[in-house]
């Protein structure tokens, strides 16, 4: 019967409406409120020097979160992103001797390989994504430490440092790169065959398979893209701090990335990816930390507050199986 009209006659504001609206757009409201608070009560918050730092700190998280959002869109998860960042970081100094391009290519190849492993385990062996990515979550950082000999290595390559610390038109190159990635991933999700297929897989894998979509290939590609984005974040982290420390790069980034994705309104149950929301999620978490630091709260407090925000976001967005 006419369910379309039934939708239209529903009251504009109802608990059900709010429940549907909150996970998707609540993040923007929270950002607005937090910005307002800062403009009123935090001195120099809108100063470019401050905003600049916030953007630079956000950039790697955004890049990793973009890949995570794609994986989550297929109803998956990738716990190995932090390990991939460490691997990429460890490889950079080893190959800088062959030129910066070679070093970058090598670290990207590492990302591709990790993605192939994860993707194959998920798509072909049929492991749950969390199980499949656990092996590299456990061993990946160790491998990075083995590769780097467990030492912190300074990086002195001008070109690489430019990527991490340089400016272009007054805006940090790092931020340009992150913005570019956002555009690319947004474009991929919206405009490509691949993007639409991955959403369909997350929405209903058996149906997508029956429709003749090469599901396994798409899934493997998604994990490869996620790992490659993580390795880009890893090499940018090296470029920014001008040294390679495999024991610290990307530590706990899987948590930050998942948080950004979930806070941004992408459901963990797949079938939908909010690219802009993911950026907003990362921004919100960044603002929370910055606000607290500006108001002289200790890092320990910010960590506990972050933990609570994550739980609230996941709670709000959790699946309701009552239908």
């Amino acid at each position, binding site marked *: 019967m006419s369910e379309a009209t039934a939708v239209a006659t529903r009251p504009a504001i109802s608990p059900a409406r709010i429940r549907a609206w909150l996970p998707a757009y609540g993040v923007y409201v929270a950002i607005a409120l937090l910005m307002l608070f800062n403009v009123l009560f935090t001195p120099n918050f809108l100063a470019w020097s401050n905003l600049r730092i916030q953007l630079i700190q956000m950039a790697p998280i955004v890049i990793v979160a973009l890949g995570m959002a794609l994986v989550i869109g297929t109803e998956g998860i990738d716990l190995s992103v932090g390990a991939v960042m460490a691997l990429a970081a460890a490889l950079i100094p080893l190959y800088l001797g062959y030129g910066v391009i070679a070093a970058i290519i090598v670290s990207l190849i590492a990302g591709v390989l990790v993605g192939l492993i994860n993707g194959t*385990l998920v798509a072909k062996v049929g*492991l749950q994504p*969390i199980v499949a990515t*656990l092996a*590299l979550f456990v061993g990946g950082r160790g*491998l990075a430490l083995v590769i780097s000999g467990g030492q912190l290595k300074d990086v002195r390559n001008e070109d690489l440092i430019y990527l991490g610390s340089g400016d272009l038109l007054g805006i940090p190159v790092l931020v340009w790169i992150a913005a570019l990635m956002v555009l690319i991933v947004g474009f991929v999700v919206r405009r490509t065959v691949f993007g639409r297929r991955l959403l369909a897989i997350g929405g209903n894998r058996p149906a997508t398979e029956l429709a003749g979509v090469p599901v396994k290939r798409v899934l493997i590609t998604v994990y490869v893209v996620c790992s490659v984005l993580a390795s880009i974040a890893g090499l940018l982290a090296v470029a920014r701090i001008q040294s390679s420390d495999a024991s610290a790069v990307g530590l706990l980034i899987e948590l930050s990335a998942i948080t950004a994705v979930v806070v941004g309104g992408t459901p963990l149950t797949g079938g939908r990816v909010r690219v802009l929301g993911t950026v907003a999620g990362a921004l919100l978490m960044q603002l929370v930390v910055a606000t607290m630091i500006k108001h002289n709260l*200790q890092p320990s407090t910010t960590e506990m507050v*972050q*933990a609570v925000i*994550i739980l609230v976001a996941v709670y709000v967005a959790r699946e309701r199986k009552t239908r």
Partner: protein
Amino acid sequence: MTQTVSDHEVAAVVAADERRAERIDRIVGLIQRQGALAVLVVVVVIGSVAFPNFRSFDNAATILIAAAPPALIALGMTFVIITGGIDLSVGSLYVLGGVVSAYASQWGLLPAFLAPLAVCGLIGVLNGALIAYSRMAPFIVTLAALLGARGLMRAISDEGSTTYLVENDAFRAFGTGSFLGIGYPVWLVAAVFALGMVLLSRTRFGHAVYAVGGSEDAASLMGVAVRRTKVWVYVMSGLLAGLAGAINAAKLGSGVTVLGTGMELDAIAAVVIGGTLLTGGAGTIAGTIAGVLLLGVIQNMINQVGNVPSSYQQVISGAFLAVVVVAQTYLVKLRRVT
């Protein structure tokens, strides 16, 4: 009629199939349960031949005392993973427990044990309640708890800058002394493991743990209190992580505020290598012991070689984990198909 003849033939084929299925089931079950033990034996034999210092009583005692805290964490993790969950917060809880224990030791031996148990147990309750009652994914809840517990630890240690020393002599003596040449902590851990084994295999709670991991829906239809069981395993995991922290504090004489110890990853690796299915429903504590010891022995051998970075340990854990997880999927399939 020909029908009856074919019926006999069918019956014979079915019986043969059945025998074959039982045989494969036994072999696969053996590999799943005892595989880690077999690998452990092989590694110990190789170690004994290759390193003269390896096969001494002192070295064995060293391996055991080093393995004591991770073993406790792995014990809790075994229960959690058998229910089909995962607890990523235990590394943080371990560090938090150590700091709390060292701090509380100024009031005596008992508070040094009880305070970390209380704090970590409470976080376990939170984990369990959120996972069981609001259907949030275990990995994300416990990942948030990892962050929260770390914040808490830093908050009570002045952002990690204060290291509390253990003030109580009896507590120190517990951490460093030994009985029959084997450290007290090892005896304690052995006792806790014995209790854990009885709990898992000989009580209704233990069977409920297996049932929840095997099939939540079926378990609840069969009358198992699914939610309560889930809460309890996370509480146990928290308690055991706290206890492990206390033991470590007693051993080192202080609550060390290192971040990102990766203990949760070692524990998961040990449990999975010990034959527990990451998807839940099957696993043994004996397997977990073998898994913990296997990783401990490998670590010890890496130290024996010298100039090899200890991070090889993680690589080996990860590699083992990958092999075991993939092998398990095929073993489970093999069992099913027949």
